[in-house]
């Protein structure tokens, strides 16, 4: 089948294969390839350590956000426990690495699988509940997991935290931001590829059917409980995988970061990026991570401005305020998120000189 080089002006698809194609045009495929080559070939060598650190964080968060997007954006089940699942993955990875001395390329996927199991347990209420009742159930899950992580001291060392060994592949230690950059972004590319292709399979279509109308989906013979559980499992797998990567990257972990605020950040990534869009999850992760860093920098700078320091105000809460404001503004002004803005920009180029 010959693909056009550029987007046509309307929808001229004639077959399901065309509808399912990941790339509509050769141009899209080539530009993604060029972008990836530039990313892997240039970014780690021209960026300084701080920027690379931010980029690595974006990569990890993007993996988790893609997972949450599968659950929220494609299956329509809202989870407020994604931050806790991220923590479960981090701890599972850390415990496997320190207690069983497993190599990291076993630990990280294994952590993902363990988190998927935990996610399925907390997805069980979805058999009976939906909408806001399910949201509240996952909220309870968040608090329960947080409690277990802190209190199960024999396993998680409680508030002491765990220090991880350096990951090692074929005798080469992966240490430093540059080495981690390649590890994290290779994982991100693989996980994105996997997610995009799940959504093109029968599973993805079942998820979307459940999101759009669960009763109709059940009427058409989709076992909705099984698929909801599967969606929870896949989403938690992504969270756990990202969590374990994060644990290796941070070297030592404590229970503190995996609180409700992290879950909220993940949902914010999905909404700001655009629900039901794979690039959207990556955009969202980028936006939130960069926003956090910019706000940290800005509040720090504001504290040093003479007259503000003179007022004796603590500017740190400004971060929380702006973060909330960003969520609110996106929901009110562009609920489809950055992915929609990106689409508008592209289509205005495509339709030029008659763009609207």
């Amino acid at each position, binding site marked *: 089948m010959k693909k056009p080089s550029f987007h046509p002006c309307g929808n001229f698809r004639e077959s399901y294969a065309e509808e399912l194609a990941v790339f509509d045009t050769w141009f899209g495929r080539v530009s993604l390839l060029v972008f990836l080559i530039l990313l892997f070939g240039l970014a780690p060598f021209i960026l300084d350590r701080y920027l690379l650190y931010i980029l690595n964080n974006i990569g990890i968060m993007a993996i988790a956000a893609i997972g949450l997007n599968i659950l929220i954006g494609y299956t329509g089940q809202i989870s407020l426990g994604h931050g806790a699942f991220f923590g479960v993955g981090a701890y599972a990875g850390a415990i496997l690495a320190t207690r069983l001395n497993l190599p990291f390329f076993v630990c990280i996927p294994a952590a993902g699988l363990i988190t998927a199991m935990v996610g399925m347990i907390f997805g069980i209420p979805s058999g009976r509940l939906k909408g*806001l009742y399910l949201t509240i159930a996952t909220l309870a899950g968040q608090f329960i997991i947080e*409690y277990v992580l802190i209190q199960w001291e024999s396993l998680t060392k409680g508030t002491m935290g765990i220090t991880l060994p350096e990951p090692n592949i074929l005798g080469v230690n992966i240490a430093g931001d540059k080495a981690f950059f390649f590890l994290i972004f290779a994982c991100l590319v693989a996980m994105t590829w996997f997610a995009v292709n799940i959504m093109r399979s029968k599973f993805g279509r079942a998820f979307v059917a459940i999101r759009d109308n669960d009763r109709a989906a059940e009427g058409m013979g989709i076992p909705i409980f099984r698929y909801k559980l599967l969606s929870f499992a896949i989403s938690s797998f992504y969270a756990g995988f990202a969590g374990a990567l994060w644990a290796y990257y941070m070297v030592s972990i404590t229970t503190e970061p995996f609180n409700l605020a992290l879950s909220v950040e993940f949902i914010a990534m999905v909404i700001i990026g655009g629900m039901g869009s794979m690039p959207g999850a990556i955009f969202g992760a980028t936006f939130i991570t960069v926003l956090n860093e910019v706000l940290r920098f800005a509040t720090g700078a504001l504290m040093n401005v003479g007259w503000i320091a003179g007022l004796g105000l603590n500017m740190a809460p400004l971060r929380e305020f702006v973060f*909330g404001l960003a969520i609110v503004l996106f929901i009110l002004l562009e609920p489809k998120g950055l992915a929609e803005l990106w689409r508008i920009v592209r289509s205005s180029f495509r339709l030029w000189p008659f763009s609207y």
Partner: protein
Amino acid sequence: MDFFLQLLVNGVCVGLLYGISAMGFVMIFKASSVLNFAHGELLAMGAFFFLSLATWGKIPVAAAFVLTLAGCFLLGFLIEKFFLRPLIGEKLIFVIMLTVGLAAMFKGLILLVWGGNLHTYPEFLPASLELHLGSITIVPVYSATLVISVAFLVLFGLFFKKSSQGIFMRSVADNQKAALSLGVHVRRVFALSWAIAAMVACMSGIVLGIINGVNVHDLSAIGMKVFPVVILGGLDSIGGAIIGGIIIGLLETFTGGYLSPSLRDVVPYIALVFILMVKPYGLFGLVEIERV
């Protein structure tokens, strides 16, 4: 036995507080089906308004109380007008996330203006409210809480049963389209219910502030505790909120007293999961029936 009785009384007192903080939450849900994650921050707003007026503004307590209620009425009205009205009919997740965003905004604002420290109100409750039941004493604030919560329960019961605005609210909660076609001003009802709910929330915030002192982090944590309470009582039942609050309060204090203090904070959520699995619409909630 004394220990048991003291725990029982403490549990009921804590539970009443939960119940009273949950009332505003239930009001909002009842009238506009919005799950308000910013409830704890609304409580804190009320508590801090009152703090500024009564302690720093040196305004007499009664006047400060009335002023705070009026301020919160306005605040609720503005929240509805600017943030929630555009979302009527939108997907659940947008509404939930909007309130989460509002919670972050309010929390940031409160921390910016008042800081994260613990503040206390001056003593103004009469000592004659102190009750003695055998060997157990109930401090004045708790008896005041009891009085206030019963008063509000009766007041709102009457409001929803008798007043035309209350009946409008119930009709909107039951079926928006039908209410609209029968001439109910749905937008005004939403605005009013948010305003009243914010007022109730801020009053609860003041009561909580009198008992525990005013601190943003504690108050927003109570905003989260509201969830087990309202699910147990039924999301749209104000009386259920009080009873749910008392049950959760008892559960907490008994777990803290007999099992382990660290389990205390998480046991409401464990109970929450069980309630959701067994009886998702709670003790007094209206069962939603889905028709295809």
